[in-house]
């Protein structure tokens, strides 16, 4: 088994911040919208470097999406930034009509996603955002797994000139384990570890958990393939089908509700193509609460041990 190592820790949202600075330099049309959470979502560095290209719209996420659409119409490349719940749920209908239906190439960059945002509690733990964004036609949904991948995702998203992109990232510092030598292509999953018994398909922070789980499993002679499904829409069906055919058992892992997210996308597709036993590592249809990210991952069943357990469960169901 290939070992994948962490080269230190940084927050995915920092990858967003650093990507913005580079984009700001490379492309004068890039503008950023802030909704009074600039420091937390890390658009403050861009705002400082390019004050004329930063627009504060106050605490008004619906307005933010419309302003972004208008800026886009006159040739700008707007990056709208907010916390996950307020980036996806609060302005859903605005995103639907003014961005998705209208095909506006606005980037919706959502930080503080998932239950791992921690102490802020349930109102700030965006656990439905992937479900909401994924169901919109003409939308691209990306959930990168570490600092570098976030940076690359944000930078690549600029090349999408038709329809909005939703990019989901997280607050806490997390292991950096991807590097420039790995390819990153929107819509193309990365198989990080090859395996033959079972496949773990993960997105976001759960990718690292999946890698750790695979190591635990390897010690028990279970060969787990680990796929980093950074793009949730469009789904890389080929990679999923191959994994389903070759390993005949799947686990999906995500910091999201069990309904509607990555696991749901995989199940929908395979039901139509190649029905396969699948276990879902996800928050089980409940709201979160305050606590530390790591504590909540355990309590709500999305930690590496839960992946290990799910793998064992799905292997028992394998035919």
């Amino acid at each position, binding site marked *: 088994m290939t070992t994948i190592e962490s080269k230190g820790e940084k927050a995915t949202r920092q990858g967003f911040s650093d990507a913005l600075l580079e984009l700001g330099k490379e492309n004068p049309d890039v*503008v950023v919208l802030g909704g009074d959470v600039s420091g937390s979502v890390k658009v403050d560095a861009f705002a400082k470097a390019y004050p*004329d*290209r930063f*627009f504060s*719209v*106050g605490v*008004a996420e*619906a*307005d*933010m*999406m*419309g*302003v*972004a*659409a*208008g*800026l*886009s*119409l*006159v*040739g*700008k490349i*707007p990056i709208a930034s907010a916390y996950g719940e307020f980036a996806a749920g609060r302005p859903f*209908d*605005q995103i*639907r*009509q*003014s961005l998705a*239906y*209208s*095909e*506006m190439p606005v980037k919706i960059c959502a930080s503080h996603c998932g239950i791992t945002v921690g102490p802020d509690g349930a109102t700030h733990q965006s656990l439905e955002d992937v479900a909401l964004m994924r169901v919109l036609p003409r939308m691209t949904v990306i959930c990168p797994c570490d600092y570098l991948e976030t940076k690359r995702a944000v930078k690549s998203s600029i090349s999408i000139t038709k329809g909005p992109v939703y990019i989901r990232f997280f607050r806490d510092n997390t292991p950096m384990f991807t590097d420039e030598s790995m390819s990153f292509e929107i819509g193309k999953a990365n198989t990080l570890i090859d395996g033959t018994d079972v496949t773990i398909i993960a997105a976001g922070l759960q990718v690292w958990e999946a890698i750790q789980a695979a190591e635990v499993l390897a010690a028990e002679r279970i060969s787990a393939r680990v796929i980093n499904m950074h793009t949730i829409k469009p789904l890389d069906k080929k990679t999923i089908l191959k994994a389903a055919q070759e390993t005949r058992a799947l686990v999906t892992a995500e910091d999201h509700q069990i309904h509607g997210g990555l696991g749901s996308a995989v199940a929908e597709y395979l039901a139509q193509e190649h029905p396969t036993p699948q276990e879902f590592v996800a928050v089980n249809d409940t709201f979160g609460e305050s606590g530390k990210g790591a504590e909540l991952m355990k309590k709500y069943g999305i930690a590496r041990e839960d992946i290990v357990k799910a793998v064992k469960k799905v292997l028992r169901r394998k035919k």
Partner: protein
Amino acid sequence: MPASNPHNSEMRDLQEMARQIRRDIIKMLMISQSGHSGGPLGLADIFSCLYFRILKYDPSNVTWPERDYFFLSAGHLAPVWYATLARAGFYPLSEMSTLRKINTRLQGHPAPWYTHGLPGIEIASGSLGQGMSIAVGAALGLRMDRKPNHVYVLHGDGELDEGQVWEGIMTAGHYSVDNLTAIVDRNFCQIDNRTDKVMELEPLADKWRAFRWNVIECDGNDISDFLVAVEEAKAIKGKPSVVIAKTFMGKGVSFMEDDYRWHGVPPGIEQGKQALSELEPTKFGDFVEFEWEKQVAEVVK
């Protein structure tokens, strides 16, 4: 008046065009038997002014960089826009008969030209309350590039119940975007009832003022009054301006006038004929296009 509008029509022609637009609205709705009568009829004078005197545009080049931007936030008012766009040369008159039919570019609520809508439509609307934010974004972007294009956004009065509109209004005030003019169709009607029954908006002008806007009130069914108001609006610097244009829902058709029950229903064939007879073209009105009239004739008989 700068000669930038492709027509730059005189008063009498604007009046005649408004009547023509009203006739087209009635005809379209008679054919589709689905869609909104009241609001669109009330706005014919304003749309005539916008497209035949005020706005800068090139119907054969909808991405012309020097164009003004017009956003119809209250998308259900589409019929008046569609009739106007046809008369302004954005698409063939005969296509008006496809309103709300499958595969049409005249969607029930406006869709932009680059998806499945009509040329001249910049972005989708229909879900109320979203146009102000879009207009503010466009105005900010244009100002950033020191471009002279002006941005217009039209709202229904009932639409102002939506909080997003006030978010956008606040943002516009905050940024003092003076390349933006809002128009409110103040017809005191919305779907369920008159606006004071559904949700009181008064004192409306005070609201906008308190959100840092310059307010101009005018009669939106009086072409010269409206033209003066818009000119004044554009001349004010350092603030966005709103023209609160009092109109009558259903204007021009006796049995529809000022009656909120005509918000969203089309006239039946007999009602339509009656309406058309009240809207007889004058001698100045000679905008007949045969294919369109033939289609109308089939329904009207």
